[in-house]
């Protein structure tokens, strides 16, 4: 198939194809998690059991600590597990294994071991699933030494970044945007090439302000930027794609041009990764070279169930447009 040609997929299918490719490519790669032998809660492993068998597609008990910890142990003897956590919120049941063990083992033991694990953690708001099934805490892991943090928002990135994650010799925390599973898009046909970590994707370009964003909110940001353009406000829109490492150079270069920064994320604004971005940009450019730097995230609340309540606290296209206008006009 010619390299140029592309295929139509959903984001869920893009991830499935990436994992499938890597499991075919490397017999040391396997997947463990609840219901994965039945294709996984989200169907992201459909057909894996049939092709790879129960030794490499391991449906587990409801034992999050051990799903995470056994993945680590198996990595320490040379296998390369994909640790499927089903829904991010359940990772809270496996934090010792993730934070105290996986993230620290290489360092703590002076480089004697490197746990080549990918922890997949579908996260974010999803059809009124309330406080315990909607959390986004990706900023926590940027603050945690020893891990790579990936948060794709497009079919192509879901595939290419998952390939890179599976090939990484250091642990990768992979935040699937669960609200975007059905998102349809295109990706290159044939072999899925790895996408390097730490490179932002520019979605739109403009001189009036810089909008930095990632994960499930990206489509809304694109929509908002288009609406802003109709009002004559043109934004550089950067999808970071990976939060650690993150593309500080691209962000700083853009703000140097626009002098105006807006960070948009679905997670809680207070203490979110947007704060780090603002702090770094101010640090690198100096306050005097920036006209305005704002963040738009969720208020500091658990996620409510009822649609009007969720809508009230959730970052919407309208709110992004309003924030974009304010930033463009401020100062």
């Amino acid at each position, binding site marked *: 198939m010619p390299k140029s040609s592309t295929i139509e997929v959903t984001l869920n299918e893009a991830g499935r194809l990436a994992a499938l490719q890597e499991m075919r490519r490397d017999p040391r790669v396997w997947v463990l998690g609840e219901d994965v032998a039945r294709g996984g809660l989200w169907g992201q492993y459909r057909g894996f059991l049939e092709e790879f068998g129960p030794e490499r597609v391991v*449906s587990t008990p409801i034992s999050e600590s051990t799903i995470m910890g056994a993945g680590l142990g198996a990595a320490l003897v040379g296998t390369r597990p994909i640790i499927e956590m089903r829904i991010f919120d359940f990772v809270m049941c496996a934090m010792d294994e993730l934070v105290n063990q996986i993230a620290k083992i290489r360092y703590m033991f002076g480089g004697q071991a490197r746990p080549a694990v990918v922890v997949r953690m579908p996260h974010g708001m999803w059809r*009124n699933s309330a406080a315990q099934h909607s959390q986004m805490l990706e900023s926590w892991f940027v603050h945690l030494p020893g891990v790579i943090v990936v948060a794709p928002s497009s079919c192509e990135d879901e595939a290419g970044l998952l390939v890179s994650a599976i090939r990484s010799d250091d642990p990768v925390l992979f935040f699937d945007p669960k609200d975007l599973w059905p998102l349809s898009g295109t990706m290159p046909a044939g072999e899925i090439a790895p996408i390097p970590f730490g490179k932002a994707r520019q979605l739109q370009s403009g001189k009036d302000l810089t909008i930095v964003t990632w994960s499930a909110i990206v489509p809304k940001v694109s929509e908002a930027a288009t609406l802003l353009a109709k009002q004559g406000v043109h934004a550089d829109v950067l999808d970071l794609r990976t939060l650690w490492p993150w593309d500080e150079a691209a962000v700083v270069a853009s703000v140097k041009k626009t002098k105006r920064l807006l960070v948009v994320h679905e997670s809680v604004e*207070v203490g979110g990764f947007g704060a780090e971005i603002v702090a770094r940009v101010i640090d690198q450019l100096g306050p005097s070279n920036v006209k305005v730097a704002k963040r738009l995230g969720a208020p500091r609340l658990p996620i*409510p169930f*009822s649609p009007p*309540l969720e809508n009230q606290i959730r970052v919407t296209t309208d709110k992004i447009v309003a924030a974009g206008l304010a930033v463009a006009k401020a100062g």
Partner: protein
Amino acid sequence: MPSKPAAKTVAPKSASTGHNLARLTDLYRMMVRIRAFEETALEAHKTGEIPGPLHVSIGQEGVATGVCANLSREDRITSNHRGHGHALAKGAESGRMFLELFGREGGYCGGKGGSLHIADFSVGMLGANGVVSGGIPIAVGAAQGLKMLKSKAIAVCFFGDGAINRGPFLEGLNWAALYKLPVLFVCEDNGVAAFTATATVTAGPGVLARAESLGVAGMSVDGNNVIAVDAAAAQLVAEVRAGAGPRLLHAKTYRWTGHTSTDVAAWRDPKDVAAGKATCPIARLKATLVERGATDADAIVAQAATEMAQGRAAAKAAPWPQPSTAFDDVQDVGAVRFG
């Protein structure tokens, strides 16, 4: 830590012993109401009136009903993700439950919780839980607090057979036995956890042996025989209330539907499904009632249908919560009003 009586299976008392018709009728009414509530909720979910995930316990009504029939209002229960039956059996109102499932004003949680977090603290229902095993440490702690406060009340902890493979099961039972806490653990064993048969992910002889090894005595019972559940719960609740320490009730049951309202559970063998449905606790008790000369079984079904239809209609007609209430009840100090 002695853990007598040794785990054993309680034979269902014949309906004639200990169970007068009034009690049987009450048990029947509660099971029928739970069934009607959840069938109505399934309908409303299909039409989109109920948003979000919905987990129903159709087929399992005998367990919540038989156990809660032995509790007082002061007793506390914790539940799991499948909590409608537990809430109703503990005394929650179907109307306010529908309001919550619909996400409307006046719902038990003001629309913030939905089905997955249904709760009615006023009747001692300390909440459904979105995390498997999440209710175990909470129930154990509630029992510890009640004991500390010299209360006569006890705690009851409902969880599924999938929950016994998470750490909190070991920690919670060891803890309860250690401090001799007034807590009854109820394992609703429907043989499945989400899309996986629990037998394929659970090693060892079973939940009773696990409990025994942690110093908690237990019993097995046919969870679809509500009379047997009532009898077993009566004995265990009495022991727990008397200060004998924790107990565990293992109730074998069957869930008619898939994991969530949208899961058809196509992987299950139709023969097994048919066999499972044949053990319907409601049908079985109805037979007993008729045999005992009761005449109001059908009227009870009709009443329940009306109750739930009205609850659904009222919820559909109810106003949405004020959007600004999204900012209420986070925390007093350090609360935020807007983004």
